[in-house]
């Protein structure tokens, strides 16, 4: 792979995170900052915070991109690819925490209506075509790869260095770990959907039916977003999985560079598309929910929300999965031991997979 191709791949990786952070920082709303509800009017200090993030992110991203094209050692370039996005995201996280701490949080209502009828189940939330697509993205690549194994040689290029040269060969069967990655993503998708059904089905006493519709729409939109993200991520993984053996064939030798760029663009920008599409919808839904009830009815206890509403700790509450009070998504009731198990699994499994891949690649 040529030097310019490698530089393009590295620069794209850095730029993608830069674009994401820029998009979040640019979000314009009279009562929100970085898509987070402020519970008050946005002030000049908030605008300054957003501007500060945009300047820092711009500088970090441009520096990273410049290093990607600079005539320096490949280790420095790889470090730039790793550190620049990390720096941008860390900066954004710090600014987000600052924004949340300055937000004026309304008291979470301790009075709510709970229907004795069963709340929406997983089947009420999922989209059948997207579920079929996600399962197909596991089953079809497995079948195709099993067929490919019948004619592939015993030795394949398994890893490329930063210049695109093959630096390790291995048995094609090693690539079955890609199937494990696809399966893991599917489990994550189903786990998140199930966790959404475990949130309390609590409503305000006024406009209960409209609020329930919005609550259902919120859960469905969240599920749809995750379904799309997983479909795009898994399509990329499947593409890489089946592409590695094909690229080892002499006829496709020149395709490594262009296809690497396609993969980087797909893996980096692909998951951003559902985020860009669904997050504004989710914030709109939450805005209407707040309009109906004065504040969101979370079915939680006000005293449980600690650290400016960022953490939920309520020993008296049996729930584990809690809708986020700040931002979009879910948090855990950290007073429940099961929540710590969920958190541990969520952190340790990806680490275990990463270590497994590193050990295997050697």
């Amino acid at each position, binding site marked *: 792979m040529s030097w310019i191709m490698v530089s393009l791949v590295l620069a794209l990786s850095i730029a993608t995170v830069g674009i994401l952070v820029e998009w979040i920082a640019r979000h314009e709303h009279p009562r929100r900052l970085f898509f987070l509800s402020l519970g008050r009017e946005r002030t000049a200090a908030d605008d300054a915070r957003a501007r500060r993030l945009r300047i820092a992110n711009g500088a970090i991203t441009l520096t990273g991109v410049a290093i990607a094209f600079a005539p320096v050692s490949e280790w420095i370039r790889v470090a730039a690819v790793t550190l620049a996005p990390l720096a941008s995201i860390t900066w954004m996280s710090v600014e987000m925490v600052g924004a949340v701490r300055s937000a004026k949080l309304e008291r979470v209502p301790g009075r709510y209506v709970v*229907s004795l009828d069963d709340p929406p189940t997983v089947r009420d939330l999922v989209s059948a075509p997207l579920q079929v697509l996600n399962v197909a993205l596991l089953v079809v690549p497995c079948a195709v790869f099993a067929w490919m194994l019948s004619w592939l040689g015993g030795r394949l290029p398994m890893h490329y260095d930063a210049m695109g040269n093959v630096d390790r060969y291995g048995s094609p069967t090693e690539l079955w770990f890609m199937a494990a990655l696809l399966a893991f993503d599917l489990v994550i998708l189903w786990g998140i959907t199930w966790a959404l059904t475990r949130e309390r089905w609590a409503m305000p006493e006024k406009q209960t039916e409209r609020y329930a519709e919005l609550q259902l729409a919120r859960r469905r939109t969240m599920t749809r977003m995750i379904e799309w993200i997983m479909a795009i991520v898994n399509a990329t993984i499947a593409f890489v999985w089946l592409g590695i053996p094909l690229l080892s064939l002499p006829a496709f030798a020149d395709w490594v560079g262009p296809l690497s760029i396609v993969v980087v663009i797909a893996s980096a920008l692909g998951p951003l598309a559902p985020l860009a599409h669904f997050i504004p919808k989710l914030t709109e839904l939450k805005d209407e929910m707040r309009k109906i009830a004065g504040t969101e009815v979370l079915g939680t206890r006000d005293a449980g929300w600690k650290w400016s509403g960022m953490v939920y700790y309520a020993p008296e509450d049996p729930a584990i999965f809690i809708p986020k009070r700040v931002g979009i998504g879910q948090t855990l009731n950290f007073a429940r031991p099961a929540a710590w198990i969920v958190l541990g699994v969520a952190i340790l499994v990806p680490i275990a997979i990463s270590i497994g891949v590193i050990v295997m690649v050697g």
Partner: protein
Amino acid sequence: MSAYREPGTARSIVVDFDSAVPLYRQIADGVRALIARGHLAEGDTLPSVRKLGEMLGVNLNTVAKAYRLLADEEVVELRRGSPARVAPPPREVGGPIDERSTRRLVDWVGRAKLSGASERVVREAFEEAVSRFYGNEEREVER
């Protein structure tokens, strides 16, 4: 198909963590009202203690205490190893109000008076409460 029905307030309970009324009383009052209004009929099973606790966000012992209270009032039947069920209605319909209910009603009027409510307001509130529980039945009879 899923058990989910279109949202409605019919079969629902209100909990208020800011209220001075103990939670077990709130739950018992909520379930009792559902039975009295016909949303839960004789023999219907109630959610398990664990499930209702999770649904409402309260401790399981609180739900168990509410169910025991309802069982003492003979509104709910509790049997070991099977779910709580709505008890059969009293055989004698049209009989006098039981002593406990009368005592509560008198207590309620006294509280309303002490809170500054006028006699007219108390009567209106009483009428509204009556129509909430008997309104549907009367309409059925009229048809």
